[in-house]
């Protein structure tokens, strides 16, 4: 694991399923964030 507890979380901007870009650092000073990584979603698509 490259990251350690207490370190700054690497920032990123990704597009959500709601067609909206989401940037991690936008939550800074406002909210705690829980990042949940999933394996593939396994849909019929």
């Amino acid at each position: 694991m490259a990251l350690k507890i207490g370190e700054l979380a690497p920032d990123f901007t990704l597009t959500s399923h709601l067609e909206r870009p989401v940037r991690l650092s936008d939550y800074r000073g406002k909210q705690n964030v829980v990042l949940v990584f999933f394996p593939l979603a396994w849909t019929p698509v």
Partner: protein
Amino acid sequence: MQTQVLGLSVDSKPCLIAWAKQLGGITYPLLSDFFPHGQVAQQYGVLRADGTAERAIFVVDKTGRIRYVDVHDIKQQPDNDLLFQVLAELEPGGARAATVAPAPVPTADVVLYCTPWCPDCKAAKAYLDSRGIAYVEVNLATDRAAAQRVREWTGGREVTPTFNIRGKIIVDFDRAKLNQALGIA
């Protein structure tokens, strides 16, 4: 509790939209870590060799710092009570609002505070094994009272491995300090 949940997977966007619909209207954004493939998963060290992400949870506090990491088996579901406990710890005075009963403090001569995914912990355990030294292992990911003790010893960081050898605290896998505390060469 002021918390935003963000789901991430290496799926393309159309795939996530289909999945969100299938789940019946999901209440948090699902983010597509698709192009460049798995870039964020890689940054967070959870991209697997087969190109998918591990099932992993990172809690990032309001200052942007990582406060909790849990990487778990692909078949295993995360422990919600534990996650709520971690989030409660982030609130002022929240550490007292324990929802999970604390495990008893181990009294063995050598206690090793670890997480299951920490490479230095594996190395430290292999070293102790090779020297024939018995130890008790405590998992910081599930024992949050233990994590609190480690934070007190280290000045706020959950460094793994941290050792408690008959009351002497050694932070990180420092072979020289460890040998000295154990009285071995």
